[in-house]
């Protein structure tokens, strides 16, 4: 299988203070793969995307997209990739149809030529095609932006936080659309701060502070979780967390929805002893069970 994107030791710093945004990042993405950059805000995801789409020059290191160097061959890259910035950046005073038509023409193509690529998405916003883009809802804006990024049949698609600020239903639909695009053999790089979306990617890179902490399939990342994980519930979360901090057999604990997750020093720790300990601390309704490891747990583990 050919590699669509190859990144080698990419470094980017900003300003006089040399704030490091991207710190010696290397990874590669196979052709037709759905690759996710997962990390909190400020992790450096956008900087990586902007360098790969030739909007930002790296300080050092190199990268290729479809075999084109991001510095030397920027022109080829610009005509072959699709980019959807995190901030909605289509013309708000043009209608849906005009925006789509404009971006098709500047790439020297027509809507008809690549209509099959956007059809599934476009039919959802087509009833509003004469509405100005600025008057659309968040979800519709995202769909339009995706259409515009796809209309020239890019080989690689860069989606920077496409689901931030979008309602859960639209988010789900959006990911379903990405799945379908994969079948068209388009390589997709997507960044997101939402851990639950990570499991929908083929492979993910966990990013933090400009560094890649781990790259693997979502399954692989979860499987390589080294510790035993418990989910604990009690009537009072705050006191529960405080009590867990004081328990010698627990490495780390944190709130996770209505439960608290705790990693154990020894996988064979007696959960009964823990329950007794929590009761002694005045907690009622205590429930202790083994938890299924999620990407978020892996991420938190890697941060410590």
């Amino acid at each position, binding site marked *: 299988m050919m590699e669509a994107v190859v990144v080698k030791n990419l470094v980017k710093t900003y300003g006089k203070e040399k704030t490091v945004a991207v710190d010696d990042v290397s990874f590669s993405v196979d052709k037709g793969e759905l690759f996710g950059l997962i990390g909190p805000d400020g992790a450096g995801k956008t900087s990586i995307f902007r360098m790969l789409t*030739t*909007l*930002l*020059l790296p300080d050092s290191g190199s990268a290729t997209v479809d075999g084109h160097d991001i510095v030397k061959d920027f022109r080829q890259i610009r*005509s072959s990739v699709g980019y959807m910035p995190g901030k909605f950046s289509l*013309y708000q005073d043009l209608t849906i149809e005009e925006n789509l038509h404009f*971006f098709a023409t*500047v790439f*020297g193509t027509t809507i008809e030529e690549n209509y099959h690529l956007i059809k599934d998405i476009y039919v959802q916003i087509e009833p509003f095609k004469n509405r100005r883009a600025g008057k659309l809802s968040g979800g519709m804006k995202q769909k339009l932006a995706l259409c515009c990024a796809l209309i020239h049949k890019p080989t690689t698609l860069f989606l920077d936080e496409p689901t931030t600020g979008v309602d859960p239903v639209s988010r789900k639909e959006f990911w379903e659309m990405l799945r379908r695009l994969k079948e068209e053999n388009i390589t997709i790089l997507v960044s997101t701060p939402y851990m639950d979306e990570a499991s929908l990617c083929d492979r993910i890179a966990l990013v933090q502070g400009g560094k890649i902490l781990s790259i693997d399939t979502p399954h692989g990342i979860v499987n390589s979780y080294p510790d035993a994980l418990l989910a604990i519930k009690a009537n009072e979360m705050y006191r529960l967390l405080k009590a867990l901090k004081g328990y010698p057999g627990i490495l780390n604990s944190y709130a996770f929805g209505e439960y608290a997750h705790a990693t154990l020093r020894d996988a064979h720790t007696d959960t009964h002893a823990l329950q007794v300990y929590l009761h002694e601390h005045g907690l009622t309704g205590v429930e202790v069970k083994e938890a299924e490891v999620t990407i978020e747990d892996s991420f938190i583990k890697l941060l410590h």
Partner: protein
Amino acid sequence: MRTLRFLLRKEFRQIFRDKAIVAMIFFMPMVQLILMPLAADYEVRNINLSVVDHDKSPYSQKLISKIVASGYFRLTGYNASFKEAFGLIESDKADLILEIPHDFERNLIREDHEKLFVAVNAINGTKASLGGSYLGNIIADFNADIRMQLVTPPRFSQFPVIDVVASNWFNPVLNYKVFIVPGILAILVTMVGGFLSALNIVREKEIGTIEQINVTPIRKHIFIIGKLVPFWVLANIVFTIGLLVARFVYGIIPVGSLLTLYAFISVYLLAVLGFGLLVSTFCDTQQQAMFIMFFFMMLFILLGGLFTSIDSMPEWAKLITRVNPVRYMIEVMRMVILKGSSFADILPHVGVVALMAVILNGWAILNYKKTN
């Protein structure tokens, strides 16, 4: 070229969808050209005059009616004493006091000379000095009339007299509007072109649309040309509307050829738009662009020779006006519209402005970075 066509179509769509811009393009030149020249008039009229006539003779009456008949003065007081008249100056009802002494007529005929007293309220400097000199002229004229009637001129004048009679060319009756309207039109075109182009790229930066444009294969110079052309066309429309207003409201018909005028404005607009685009490549927000443009526009207009003559500026200021495109525009407007200069006459101006256009646009293209 195909890309350029689509860029232009997009720009025009956006411009005509923005109602404020359309209104500005059509109403601004009309309103400004109709209001400004009528209000901003250098000629001082309606100077309030108070007369203290101690003589009350036919001659003093004649003098007063001559002054009032000039049209510059309005008699607001006819007082018995200077003190009374001074009260009018204090309450701002009079700008000037003319005091005619006792025996004005008798002394003038018998003694052959008499003195008049003129007091001027100098709080408004222009009004004071102009009013004073208008009044002086009228009195001198009055004096000459009387001499003519009373004295039989000797065969040869006892004193050699050089009488200077000036004839005004190109604007024979010194109509202020003829002088100011082409200048205001020049500034209008500059403002419309400069501001619209300066704000445009910055707006794309602010909204973020430039991000999407930068990842497309659109070439830098195509993008800049795509921004330049629509505003060039709009500014030409504004200019044409302005010429029509000048013609039908003020009756100003260019003496020179319209073709010469449009040839110059075509080159001139490239320079102005290039300047606006250059500013916009340096700025990140519309606010920044607006302030920078204001700064330069003020300089351009005040040092452009519209309100004050460049010839009377100090040397260093004259040097600055050489790099001021507005200066060349105002000069050419007056040359072609009033004087009827031909294209050959304005060729030096065209050359300078063309050079500015090349430098400013080239700089704007270089400074517009698709990659940071």
